[in-house]
Protein backbone atom coordinates (compact mmCIF):
# COMPACT_ATOMS: atom_id res chain seq x y z
CA UNK A 1 0.00 0.00 0.00
CA UNK A 2 1.21 3.47 -0.75
CA UNK A 3 2.21 5.79 2.07
CA UNK A 4 1.42 9.05 0.33
CA UNK A 5 -1.00 9.62 -2.49
CA UNK A 6 -1.43 12.78 -4.52
CA UNK A 7 -4.57 13.36 -6.61
CA UNK A 8 -4.98 16.06 -9.24
CA UNK A 9 -2.58 18.39 -7.46
CA UNK A 10 -2.20 21.89 -8.95
CA UNK A 11 -0.67 25.13 -7.80
CA UNK A 12 -0.70 28.42 -9.60
CA UNK A 13 0.87 31.73 -8.71
CA UNK A 14 -0.93 34.63 -10.32
CA UNK A 15 -1.58 32.74 -13.57
CA UNK A 16 1.66 30.78 -13.63
CA UNK A 17 1.01 27.05 -13.32
CA UNK A 18 3.89 25.84 -11.19
CA UNK A 19 2.37 22.41 -10.69
CA UNK A 20 -0.40 20.98 -12.88
CA UNK A 21 -2.69 18.02 -12.32
CA UNK A 22 -0.21 15.69 -10.70
CA UNK A 23 -1.23 12.20 -9.68
CA UNK A 24 1.21 9.83 -8.11
CA UNK A 25 1.70 7.56 -5.17
CA UNK A 26 4.73 6.91 -3.04
CA UNK A 27 5.07 3.32 -1.82
CA UNK A 28 6.17 2.80 1.77
CA UNK A 29 9.77 1.88 2.47
CA UNK A 30 11.18 3.02 -0.85
CA UNK A 31 13.40 5.77 -2.12
CA UNK A 32 11.19 7.83 -4.40
CA UNK A 33 12.89 10.45 -6.49
CA UNK A 34 11.51 13.55 -8.16
CA UNK A 35 13.69 14.99 -10.88
CA UNK A 36 13.34 17.62 -13.53
CA UNK A 37 15.16 20.58 -14.99
CA UNK A 38 15.30 23.92 -13.21
CA UNK A 39 11.88 25.47 -12.90
CA UNK A 40 10.12 22.18 -13.35
CA UNK A 41 8.20 22.70 -10.13
CA UNK A 42 10.15 20.33 -7.90
CA UNK A 43 10.48 22.66 -4.94
CA UNK A 44 6.90 23.88 -5.34
CA UNK A 45 5.76 20.28 -5.19
CA UNK A 46 7.80 19.72 -2.05
CA UNK A 47 6.31 22.83 -0.47
CA UNK A 48 2.85 21.49 -1.29
CA UNK A 49 3.68 18.10 0.20
CA UNK A 50 4.69 19.74 3.49
CA UNK A 51 1.83 22.21 3.78
CA UNK A 52 3.93 25.33 3.16
CA UNK A 53 1.84 26.05 0.07
CA UNK A 54 -1.87 25.37 -0.06
CA UNK A 55 -2.77 23.67 -3.35
CA UNK A 56 -5.00 25.49 -5.83
CA UNK A 57 -6.75 22.18 -6.35
CA UNK A 58 -6.23 18.52 -5.70
CA UNK A 59 -5.68 16.41 -2.62
CA UNK A 60 -2.79 15.09 -0.58
CA UNK A 61 -3.44 11.92 1.37
CA UNK A 62 -1.20 10.24 3.87
CA UNK A 63 -2.42 6.68 4.30
CA UNK A 64 -5.92 7.70 3.23
CA UNK A 65 -5.97 10.63 5.68
CA UNK A 66 -6.60 13.87 3.84
CA UNK A 67 -4.04 16.52 4.79
CA UNK A 68 -4.98 19.10 2.15
CA UNK A 69 -5.10 22.62 3.54
CA UNK A 70 -3.46 21.71 6.84
CA UNK A 71 -0.61 23.77 8.31
CA UNK A 72 2.99 22.60 7.93
CA UNK A 73 3.28 21.61 11.58
CA UNK A 74 0.31 19.27 11.14
CA UNK A 75 2.05 17.57 8.23
CA UNK A 76 5.05 17.17 10.52
CA UNK A 77 2.86 15.76 13.27
CA UNK A 78 1.56 13.14 10.80
CA UNK A 79 5.09 12.02 10.10
CA UNK A 80 6.30 14.07 7.14
CA UNK A 81 9.69 15.70 7.60
CA UNK A 82 11.92 17.52 5.16
CA UNK A 83 15.15 19.35 4.48
CA UNK A 84 15.59 22.49 2.41
CA UNK A 85 17.59 23.41 -0.62
CA UNK A 86 17.95 26.93 0.83
CA UNK A 87 19.04 25.93 4.30
CA UNK A 88 16.58 26.60 7.11
CA UNK A 89 18.97 25.85 9.94
CA UNK A 90 18.32 27.66 13.24
CA UNK A 91 21.52 29.65 13.16
CA UNK A 92 20.78 31.18 16.57
CA UNK A 93 21.24 27.78 18.21
CA UNK A 94 23.96 25.18 18.59
CA UNK A 95 24.06 22.19 16.27
CA UNK A 96 22.87 19.87 19.00
CA UNK A 97 19.98 22.18 19.91
CA UNK A 98 18.93 22.19 16.25
CA UNK A 99 18.51 18.45 16.42
CA UNK A 100 16.83 18.67 19.83
CA UNK A 101 14.21 20.98 18.29
CA UNK A 102 13.40 18.07 16.00
CA UNK A 103 12.35 16.09 19.06
CA UNK A 104 9.68 18.71 19.84
CA UNK A 105 6.78 16.54 18.72
CA UNK A 106 7.80 13.66 20.94
CA UNK A 107 8.51 15.64 24.09
CA UNK A 108 5.06 16.38 25.39
CA UNK A 109 5.53 19.07 28.01
CA UNK A 110 3.04 21.55 29.36
CA UNK A 111 3.85 25.17 29.98
CA UNK A 112 3.78 24.87 33.80
CA UNK A 113 6.17 21.94 33.62
CA UNK A 114 8.52 24.02 31.46
CA UNK A 115 8.34 27.14 33.63
CA UNK A 116 8.80 25.27 36.91
CA UNK A 117 11.10 22.65 35.45
CA UNK A 118 9.43 19.56 36.87
CA UNK A 119 11.82 16.67 37.56
CA UNK A 120 10.07 14.66 34.85
CA UNK A 121 11.05 17.34 32.36
CA UNK A 122 14.68 17.28 33.48
CA UNK A 123 14.75 13.53 32.83
CA UNK A 124 13.08 13.91 29.45
CA UNK A 125 15.57 16.60 28.52
CA UNK A 126 18.49 14.32 29.30
CA UNK A 127 16.99 11.61 27.12
CA UNK A 128 16.34 14.14 24.38
CA UNK A 129 19.94 15.31 24.46
CA UNK A 130 21.26 11.76 24.28
CA UNK A 131 19.04 10.89 21.39
CA UNK A 132 20.04 14.07 19.54
CA UNK A 133 23.69 13.21 20.06
CA UNK A 134 23.20 9.74 18.70
CA UNK A 135 21.36 11.13 15.67
CA UNK A 136 24.25 13.49 15.03
CA UNK A 137 26.62 10.57 15.10
CA UNK A 138 24.28 8.69 12.75
CA UNK A 139 24.51 11.42 10.11
CA UNK A 140 28.23 11.74 10.67
CA UNK A 141 28.33 14.97 12.69
CA UNK A 142 29.58 13.55 15.98
CA UNK A 143 32.43 16.04 16.11
CA UNK A 144 30.08 19.04 15.83
CA UNK A 145 27.86 18.28 18.81
CA UNK A 146 28.85 21.38 20.75
CA UNK A 147 29.41 23.75 17.78
CA UNK A 148 27.30 26.80 17.24
CA UNK A 149 25.52 26.11 13.99
CA UNK A 150 26.66 29.34 12.34
CA UNK A 151 30.26 28.14 12.56
CA UNK A 152 29.69 24.92 10.60
CA UNK A 153 30.65 24.25 6.97
CA UNK A 154 27.94 24.03 4.33
CA UNK A 155 28.15 20.29 3.87
CA UNK A 156 27.75 19.69 7.59
CA UNK A 157 24.70 21.97 7.69
CA UNK A 158 23.01 19.82 5.05
CA UNK A 159 23.54 16.78 7.26
CA UNK A 160 22.38 18.77 10.26
CA UNK A 161 19.03 19.36 8.57
CA UNK A 162 18.75 15.65 7.89
CA UNK A 163 19.47 14.88 11.54
CA UNK A 164 16.85 17.42 12.64
CA UNK A 165 14.32 15.89 10.26
CA UNK A 166 15.12 12.39 11.52
CA UNK A 167 14.62 13.54 15.10
CA UNK A 168 10.93 14.01 14.33
CA UNK A 169 10.83 10.23 13.69
CA UNK A 170 9.29 10.67 10.25
CA UNK A 171 7.59 8.00 8.20
CA UNK A 172 8.25 10.07 5.11
CA UNK A 173 11.42 12.10 4.71
CA UNK A 174 11.62 14.64 1.91
CA UNK A 175 15.12 15.71 0.90
CA UNK A 176 15.37 18.82 -1.27
CA UNK A 177 18.56 18.58 -3.35
CA UNK A 178 20.72 17.28 -0.54
CA UNK A 179 23.77 17.18 -2.80
CA UNK A 180 23.43 20.64 -4.31
CA UNK A 181 26.53 22.71 -3.71
CA UNK A 182 28.57 19.76 -2.46
CA UNK A 183 31.84 18.53 -3.91
CA UNK A 184 32.08 14.98 -5.34
CA UNK A 185 33.46 13.47 -2.12
CA UNK A 186 30.73 15.06 -0.03
CA UNK A 187 28.16 13.91 -2.59
CA UNK A 188 29.32 10.34 -2.18
CA UNK A 189 28.91 10.72 1.56
CA UNK A 190 25.34 11.94 1.18
CA UNK A 191 24.70 9.07 -1.24
CA UNK A 192 25.78 6.64 1.43
CA UNK A 193 23.72 8.39 4.06
CA UNK A 194 20.57 8.16 1.95
CA UNK A 195 21.12 4.45 1.45
CA UNK A 196 21.57 4.09 5.19
CA UNK A 197 18.32 5.98 5.74
CA UNK A 198 16.46 3.77 3.32
CA UNK A 199 17.75 0.68 5.07
CA UNK A 200 16.52 2.01 8.40
CA UNK A 201 12.98 1.81 7.04
CA UNK A 202 12.17 5.47 6.39
CA UNK A 203 10.41 6.24 3.15
CA UNK A 204 12.58 8.81 1.38
CA UNK A 205 11.53 11.30 -1.25
CA UNK A 206 14.59 12.62 -2.98
CA UNK A 207 14.34 15.75 -5.06
CA UNK A 208 17.45 16.04 -7.10
CA UNK A 209 19.17 17.71 -9.93
CA UNK A 210 22.16 15.42 -9.72
CA UNK A 211 21.19 12.52 -11.97
CA UNK A 212 23.95 10.20 -10.89
CA UNK A 213 22.85 10.32 -7.26
CA UNK A 214 19.26 9.61 -8.19
CA UNK A 215 19.98 6.76 -10.54
CA UNK A 216 22.06 5.05 -7.91
CA UNK A 217 19.64 5.11 -4.99
CA UNK A 218 16.12 5.66 -6.25
CA UNK A 219 13.61 2.83 -6.44
CA UNK A 220 11.15 4.90 -8.44
CA UNK A 221 11.58 8.17 -10.26
CA UNK A 222 9.03 10.86 -11.14
CA UNK A 223 10.17 13.23 -13.88
CA UNK A 224 8.62 16.69 -13.94
CA UNK A 225 8.71 19.25 -16.69
CA UNK A 226 6.91 22.59 -16.54
CA UNK A 227 4.96 21.41 -13.54
CA UNK A 228 3.59 18.38 -15.34
CA UNK A 229 4.38 14.73 -15.10
CA UNK A 230 6.68 13.72 -17.91
CA UNK A 231 7.39 10.18 -16.87
CA UNK A 232 7.39 7.87 -13.91
CA UNK A 233 9.02 4.50 -13.30
CA UNK A 234 12.17 2.75 -12.25
CA UNK A 235 15.53 4.29 -13.02
CA UNK A 236 15.91 2.08 -16.00
CA UNK A 237 12.45 2.88 -17.39
CA UNK A 238 12.95 6.57 -16.99
CA UNK A 239 16.38 6.54 -18.52
CA UNK A 240 14.99 4.95 -21.66
CA UNK A 241 11.94 7.17 -21.94
CA UNK A 242 12.34 9.26 -25.12
CA UNK A 243 10.40 12.19 -23.65
CA UNK A 244 12.78 12.32 -20.73
CA UNK A 245 15.80 12.12 -22.97
CA UNK A 246 14.48 14.95 -25.05
CA UNK A 247 13.37 17.27 -22.29
CA UNK A 248 15.92 16.65 -19.63
CA UNK A 249 18.79 14.38 -20.35
CA UNK A 250 19.05 15.53 -23.89
CA UNK A 251 19.28 19.12 -22.89
CA UNK A 252 21.74 18.80 -20.07
CA UNK A 253 23.08 15.25 -19.95
CA UNK A 254 26.13 14.88 -17.83
Amino acid at each position, binding site marked *: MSLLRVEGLSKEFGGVHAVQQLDFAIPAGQVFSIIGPNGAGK*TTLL*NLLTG*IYVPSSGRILLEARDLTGRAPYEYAARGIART*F*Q*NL*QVFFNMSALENVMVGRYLHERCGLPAALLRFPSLARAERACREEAESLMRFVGLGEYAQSPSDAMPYGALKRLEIARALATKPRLLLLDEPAAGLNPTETLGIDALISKLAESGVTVVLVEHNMKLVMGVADRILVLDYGKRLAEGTAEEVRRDPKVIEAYLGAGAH
Partner: protein
Amino acid sequence: MSAQFLQFLLAGLTVGAIYALVALGFSIIYNASQVINFAQGEFVMIGGMCTVWLANAGWPLPAAIAAAVLVAAAVGLALEKLAVEPARGASVVTLIIITIGASILLRGLATIVWDKNIHPLKAFSGEAPIQLGGATLLPQSLWVLGVTVVIVLLLSWFFGRTLLGKALLATSHNRLAAQLVGINVRHVLLASFGLSAALGAVAGILVAPITFTAWDVGVMLGLKGFAAAILGGMGSGPGAVLGGLVLGIVEAMGAGYVSSAYKDAIAFVIILAVLFFLPSGLLGRRSSDRV
Protein backbone atom coordinates in the same frame (compact mmCIF):
# COMPACT_ATOMS: atom_id res chain seq x y z
CA MET B 1 -20.63 67.78 -0.31
CA SER B 2 -21.21 69.91 2.74
CA ALA B 3 -18.93 72.78 3.64
CA GLN B 4 -18.12 71.04 6.89
CA PHE B 5 -16.99 67.90 5.09
CA LEU B 6 -14.90 69.98 2.73
CA GLN B 7 -13.26 71.74 5.65
CA PHE B 8 -12.35 68.42 7.24
CA LEU B 9 -11.03 67.16 3.93
CA LEU B 10 -8.83 70.21 3.39
CA ALA B 11 -7.45 69.95 6.92
CA GLY B 12 -6.78 66.26 6.39
CA LEU B 13 -5.09 66.77 3.04
CA THR B 14 -2.73 69.44 4.38
CA VAL B 15 -1.66 67.38 7.37
CA GLY B 16 -1.62 64.26 5.22
CA ALA B 17 0.74 65.82 2.71
CA ILE B 18 3.24 66.48 5.50
CA TYR B 19 2.89 62.90 6.75
CA ALA B 20 3.46 61.77 3.17
CA LEU B 21 6.74 63.67 2.88
CA VAL B 22 8.00 62.21 6.15
CA ALA B 23 6.81 58.75 5.08
CA LEU B 24 8.69 59.07 1.78
CA GLY B 25 11.84 59.72 3.79
CA PHE B 26 11.27 56.51 5.77
CA SER B 27 10.67 54.54 2.60
CA ILE B 28 13.73 55.77 0.73
CA ILE B 29 16.11 54.86 3.53
CA TYR B 30 14.33 51.59 4.10
CA ASN B 31 14.65 50.66 0.45
CA ALA B 32 18.35 51.34 0.32
CA SER B 33 19.32 49.88 3.67
CA GLN B 34 16.40 47.98 5.26
CA VAL B 35 16.84 50.39 8.15
CA ILE B 36 13.84 52.04 9.77
CA ASN B 37 15.34 55.40 10.56
CA PHE B 38 13.69 56.57 13.76
CA ALA B 39 15.66 59.81 13.51
CA GLN B 40 13.61 60.78 10.44
CA GLY B 41 11.48 63.15 12.52
CA GLU B 42 14.60 65.02 13.60
CA PHE B 43 15.29 66.01 9.99
CA VAL B 44 11.87 67.65 10.04
CA MET B 45 12.87 69.51 13.18
CA ILE B 46 16.25 70.55 11.78
CA GLY B 47 14.62 71.90 8.62
CA GLY B 48 12.19 74.05 10.53
CA MET B 49 14.50 75.21 13.32
CA CYS B 50 17.41 75.98 11.02
CA THR B 51 15.21 78.02 8.68
CA VAL B 52 13.80 80.02 11.59
CA TRP B 53 17.26 80.57 13.01
CA LEU B 54 18.72 81.80 9.74
CA ALA B 55 15.68 83.92 8.92
CA ASN B 56 15.93 85.56 12.33
CA ALA B 57 19.60 86.19 11.64
CA GLY B 58 18.52 88.27 8.68
CA TRP B 59 18.84 85.83 5.81
CA PRO B 60 16.25 86.13 3.06
CA LEU B 61 13.71 83.31 3.37
CA PRO B 62 14.64 81.42 0.18
CA ALA B 63 18.32 81.40 1.16
CA ALA B 64 17.47 80.30 4.69
CA ILE B 65 15.32 77.48 3.31
CA ALA B 66 17.98 76.29 0.91
CA ALA B 67 20.62 76.38 3.62
CA ALA B 68 18.40 74.52 6.08
CA VAL B 69 17.75 71.75 3.56
CA LEU B 70 21.48 71.46 2.98
CA VAL B 71 22.22 71.37 6.70
CA ALA B 72 19.65 68.61 7.20
CA ALA B 73 21.07 66.67 4.24
CA ALA B 74 24.56 67.02 5.72
CA VAL B 75 23.29 65.70 9.05
CA GLY B 76 21.69 62.81 7.16
CA LEU B 77 24.96 62.00 5.42
CA ALA B 78 26.85 62.22 8.71
CA LEU B 79 24.32 59.90 10.36
CA GLU B 80 24.86 57.31 7.64
CA LYS B 81 28.63 57.67 7.60
CA LEU B 82 29.23 57.79 11.34
CA ALA B 83 26.51 55.60 12.78
CA VAL B 84 24.80 53.35 10.25
CA GLU B 85 27.77 52.33 8.13
CA PRO B 86 30.04 51.29 11.03
CA ALA B 87 27.19 49.13 12.34
CA ARG B 88 26.61 47.28 9.08
CA GLY B 89 25.86 43.65 9.63
CA ALA B 90 24.15 44.35 12.93
CA SER B 91 20.60 43.12 13.37
CA VAL B 92 17.68 45.28 12.30
CA VAL B 93 16.64 45.92 15.89
CA THR B 94 20.16 47.06 16.77
CA LEU B 95 20.07 49.50 13.85
CA ILE B 96 16.71 50.79 15.04
CA ILE B 97 18.15 51.44 18.49
CA ILE B 98 21.09 53.27 16.93
CA THR B 99 18.73 55.59 15.07
CA ILE B 100 16.72 56.13 18.26
CA GLY B 101 19.97 57.09 19.98
CA ALA B 102 20.69 59.45 17.10
CA SER B 103 17.30 61.09 17.46
CA ILE B 104 17.88 61.72 21.18
CA LEU B 105 21.34 63.09 20.41
CA LEU B 106 20.02 65.40 17.68
CA ARG B 107 17.22 66.69 19.88
CA GLY B 108 19.72 67.33 22.66
CA LEU B 109 21.99 69.20 20.25
CA ALA B 110 19.06 71.27 19.03
CA THR B 111 18.30 72.45 22.57
CA ILE B 112 21.93 73.54 22.94
CA VAL B 113 22.59 75.02 19.49
CA TRP B 114 19.19 76.67 19.37
CA ASP B 115 16.84 76.67 22.37
CA LYS B 116 13.79 75.03 23.88
CA ASN B 117 11.33 77.65 22.72
CA ILE B 118 8.61 77.31 20.15
CA HIS B 119 9.22 79.47 17.09
CA PRO B 120 6.92 80.85 14.42
CA LEU B 121 7.88 81.16 10.79
CA LYS B 122 6.28 83.70 8.51
CA ALA B 123 3.88 82.18 5.99
CA PHE B 124 5.32 82.20 2.47
CA SER B 125 2.45 84.18 0.98
CA GLY B 126 0.43 85.79 3.70
CA GLU B 127 -2.20 84.60 6.10
CA ALA B 128 -5.39 85.73 4.38
CA PRO B 129 -7.69 82.69 4.31
CA ILE B 130 -8.95 81.56 0.92
CA GLN B 131 -12.68 80.79 0.69
CA LEU B 132 -13.48 77.55 -1.07
CA GLY B 133 -17.04 76.30 -1.30
CA GLY B 134 -17.90 77.36 2.21
CA ALA B 135 -14.62 76.11 3.65
CA THR B 136 -11.47 78.08 4.21
CA LEU B 137 -7.88 77.32 3.42
CA LEU B 138 -4.66 79.08 4.32
CA PRO B 139 -2.30 79.98 1.48
CA GLN B 140 0.39 78.01 3.27
CA SER B 141 -1.72 74.86 2.86
CA LEU B 142 -1.55 75.43 -0.88
CA TRP B 143 2.23 75.63 -0.56
CA VAL B 144 2.26 72.36 1.37
CA LEU B 145 0.06 70.58 -1.17
CA GLY B 146 1.78 72.12 -4.17
CA VAL B 147 5.32 71.38 -3.04
CA THR B 148 4.32 67.85 -2.10
CA VAL B 149 2.96 67.27 -5.61
CA VAL B 150 6.14 68.72 -7.15
CA ILE B 151 8.34 66.55 -4.93
CA VAL B 152 6.37 63.42 -5.76
CA LEU B 153 6.76 64.21 -9.48
CA LEU B 154 10.47 64.93 -9.05
CA LEU B 155 10.97 61.68 -7.15
CA SER B 156 9.20 59.60 -9.77
CA TRP B 157 11.37 61.22 -12.40
CA PHE B 158 14.45 60.61 -10.25
CA PHE B 159 13.73 56.94 -9.69
CA GLY B 160 12.49 56.33 -13.22
CA ARG B 161 14.99 58.27 -15.29
CA THR B 162 18.24 59.00 -13.51
CA LEU B 163 21.12 56.61 -12.99
CA LEU B 164 21.38 57.24 -9.25
CA GLY B 165 17.64 56.77 -8.86
CA LYS B 166 17.73 53.51 -10.73
CA ALA B 167 20.71 52.41 -8.68
CA LEU B 168 18.71 53.14 -5.53
CA LEU B 169 15.81 51.07 -6.81
CA ALA B 170 18.06 48.25 -7.91
CA THR B 171 19.73 48.16 -4.50
CA SER B 172 16.36 47.97 -2.83
CA HIS B 173 15.33 44.98 -4.90
CA ASN B 174 18.51 43.02 -4.56
CA ARG B 175 21.56 44.41 -2.89
CA LEU B 176 23.94 41.69 -3.96
CA ALA B 177 22.83 41.79 -7.57
CA ALA B 178 23.16 45.56 -7.57
CA GLN B 179 26.69 45.21 -6.28
CA LEU B 180 27.48 42.66 -8.97
CA VAL B 181 26.39 44.93 -11.80
CA GLY B 182 28.77 47.55 -10.51
CA ILE B 183 26.58 49.79 -8.39
CA ASN B 184 28.49 51.26 -5.49
CA VAL B 185 26.07 50.27 -2.76
CA ARG B 186 27.83 52.40 -0.18
CA HIS B 187 27.28 55.52 -2.25
CA VAL B 188 23.67 54.56 -2.75
CA LEU B 189 23.18 54.22 0.99
CA LEU B 190 24.78 57.57 1.59
CA ALA B 191 22.63 59.18 -1.08
CA SER B 192 19.47 57.70 0.39
CA PHE B 193 20.17 59.25 3.78
CA GLY B 194 20.97 62.61 2.25
CA LEU B 195 17.82 62.55 0.13
CA SER B 196 15.58 61.46 3.01
CA ALA B 197 17.00 64.10 5.28
CA ALA B 198 16.39 66.77 2.66
CA LEU B 199 12.80 65.57 2.19
CA GLY B 200 12.21 65.64 5.93
CA ALA B 201 13.65 69.14 6.13
CA VAL B 202 11.35 70.35 3.35
CA ALA B 203 8.38 68.95 5.26
CA GLY B 204 9.54 70.70 8.42
CA ILE B 205 9.92 74.02 6.64
CA LEU B 206 6.58 73.82 4.85
CA VAL B 207 4.68 73.04 8.00
CA ALA B 208 6.46 75.50 10.29
CA PRO B 209 4.28 78.51 9.38
CA ILE B 210 1.16 76.46 10.18
CA THR B 211 2.21 74.56 13.27
CA PHE B 212 5.38 76.38 14.36
CA THR B 213 8.59 74.59 15.09
CA ALA B 214 10.53 73.57 18.18
CA TRP B 215 13.27 71.18 19.20
CA ASP B 216 10.77 68.37 19.76
CA VAL B 217 8.36 68.69 16.81
CA GLY B 218 10.07 65.75 15.13
CA VAL B 219 8.78 63.20 17.62
CA MET B 220 5.11 63.25 16.69
CA LEU B 221 5.66 63.95 12.99
CA GLY B 222 8.21 61.14 12.85
CA LEU B 223 5.76 58.75 14.48
CA LYS B 224 2.93 59.72 12.14
CA GLY B 225 5.26 59.49 9.16
CA PHE B 226 6.27 55.98 10.18
CA ALA B 227 2.62 55.03 10.60
CA ALA B 228 1.88 56.44 7.15
CA ALA B 229 4.77 54.56 5.56
CA ILE B 230 3.62 51.28 7.10
CA LEU B 231 -0.01 51.92 6.21
CA GLY B 232 0.96 52.49 2.59
CA GLY B 233 3.42 49.61 2.55
CA MET B 234 6.99 50.15 3.69
CA GLY B 235 9.28 50.76 0.76
CA SER B 236 6.59 51.79 -1.67
CA GLY B 237 6.75 55.39 -2.83
CA PRO B 238 3.13 55.66 -3.97
CA GLY B 239 2.23 53.78 -0.79
CA ALA B 240 3.93 56.40 1.37
CA VAL B 241 2.01 59.20 -0.31
CA LEU B 242 -1.28 57.32 -0.13
CA GLY B 243 -0.63 56.29 3.48
CA GLY B 244 0.12 59.87 4.48
CA LEU B 245 -2.99 61.29 2.85
CA VAL B 246 -5.24 58.53 4.21
CA LEU B 247 -3.86 59.01 7.70
CA GLY B 248 -4.34 62.78 7.57
CA ILE B 249 -7.89 62.51 6.27
CA VAL B 250 -8.84 59.77 8.74
CA GLU B 251 -7.61 61.96 11.59
CA ALA B 252 -9.54 65.00 10.42
CA MET B 253 -12.73 63.03 9.77
CA GLY B 254 -12.36 61.19 13.06
CA ALA B 255 -11.99 64.46 14.94
CA GLY B 256 -14.86 66.04 13.04
CA TYR B 257 -17.43 63.28 13.00
CA VAL B 258 -16.58 60.88 15.81
CA SER B 259 -14.55 62.13 18.74
CA SER B 260 -11.77 64.65 18.76
CA ALA B 261 -10.27 63.16 21.93
CA TYR B 262 -10.05 59.76 20.27
CA LYS B 263 -9.04 60.86 16.78
CA ASP B 264 -5.49 59.44 17.07
CA ALA B 265 -6.84 56.22 18.52
CA ILE B 266 -9.29 56.00 15.61
CA ALA B 267 -6.44 56.45 13.15
CA PHE B 268 -4.43 53.66 14.77
CA VAL B 269 -7.43 51.34 14.92
CA ILE B 270 -7.86 51.83 11.19
CA ILE B 271 -4.17 51.15 10.58
CA LEU B 272 -4.43 47.95 12.61
CA ALA B 273 -7.55 46.94 10.71
CA VAL B 274 -5.83 47.52 7.37
CA LEU B 275 -2.80 45.49 8.48
CA PHE B 276 -4.98 42.58 9.56
CA PHE B 277 -6.39 42.31 6.07
CA LEU B 278 -3.36 43.52 4.12
CA PRO B 279 -0.33 42.46 6.16
CA SER B 280 1.99 44.41 3.83
CA GLY B 281 0.04 47.64 3.86
CA LEU B 282 -2.08 49.17 1.10
CA LEU B 283 0.51 49.06 -1.69
CA GLY B 284 3.34 47.06 -0.15
CA ARG B 285 5.17 44.28 -1.93
CA ARG B 286 3.51 40.98 -1.12
CA SER B 287 6.22 38.85 0.32
CA SER B 288 6.28 35.10 0.03
CA ASP B 289 8.87 32.88 1.58
CA ARG B 290 11.32 31.42 -0.83
CA VAL B 291 12.42 28.12 0.57
